[in-house]
């Protein structure tokens, strides 16, 4: 026993996945909204 948390890569993947998805979706929504506003 080392006291170190074993495994946990699924949580790491989830954290990075949520981050990338959030930033990507927000950025895409922004560009779409901007395009809509342009005459």
């Amino acid at each position, binding site marked *: 026993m080392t*006291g*170190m*948390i*074993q*495994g*946990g*890569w699924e*949580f*790491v993947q*989830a*954290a*990075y996945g*949520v*981050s990338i998805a*959030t*930033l990507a979706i*927000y*950025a895409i929504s*922004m*560009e779409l*909204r*901007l395009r809509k*506003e*342009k005459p």
Partner: protein
Amino acid sequence: MKDRWEHLVGLLGLALFGFGTWHGLVVAPPDIYMGDVQRIMYVHVPTAWAALLTLTFAFFVAIGWLVRGTWRWDALQEASIEVGVVLGALLIAQGSIWARPTWGVWWDWDPRLTTSAVLVLAFAGILALRSFVDDPRRRATWTAVAAIVAYVDVPIVYFSVRWWRSLHQVQSSPDTVDKPMVLALRINAFALLFLATWLVARRYRLARARNRAELADMEAA
């Protein structure tokens, strides 16, 4: 193209985020206690810094509106509050994913988590308030006053881990963290800062376009 610099900042942020994430996931060693789960820190902490900096920017532009009263300041406060709320919500989601394997729970009413949630809800409330006010000048002033009041929570969030005995760990310093860990953290800190700047700049353009259209409609009516 007027917006070329914005896209350059965004691309730089994206490239740095790719490099910092690779460094954090592949090069940096696992933490002695938290193991690989600690790698979440390389995205969680930079998101926290970017969220707090964006809301600090919102605080200053709110003062800018109250002092100068020109529409650019209002567009900037709308942009920075929205991006700050998105980053703040992301921060809480990342923290929850971190909490499950380290604390055994998805959420705890710990001072850092609670004050962070209050912060996001307060600024989200300001965005909701904006949508209910028809008069653009009154909307901008109410936004500015509410943003200044809500900003009081930002230093409370930052110092909460020192002021109270919190489950959330205190801020690390480069002296206490392994060098490859510091590097991954710094690269992603700049990455999130550039990405936040790009998002605020794009959201500012959107707010300005809508503001111009709204004022033109009012003049025509």
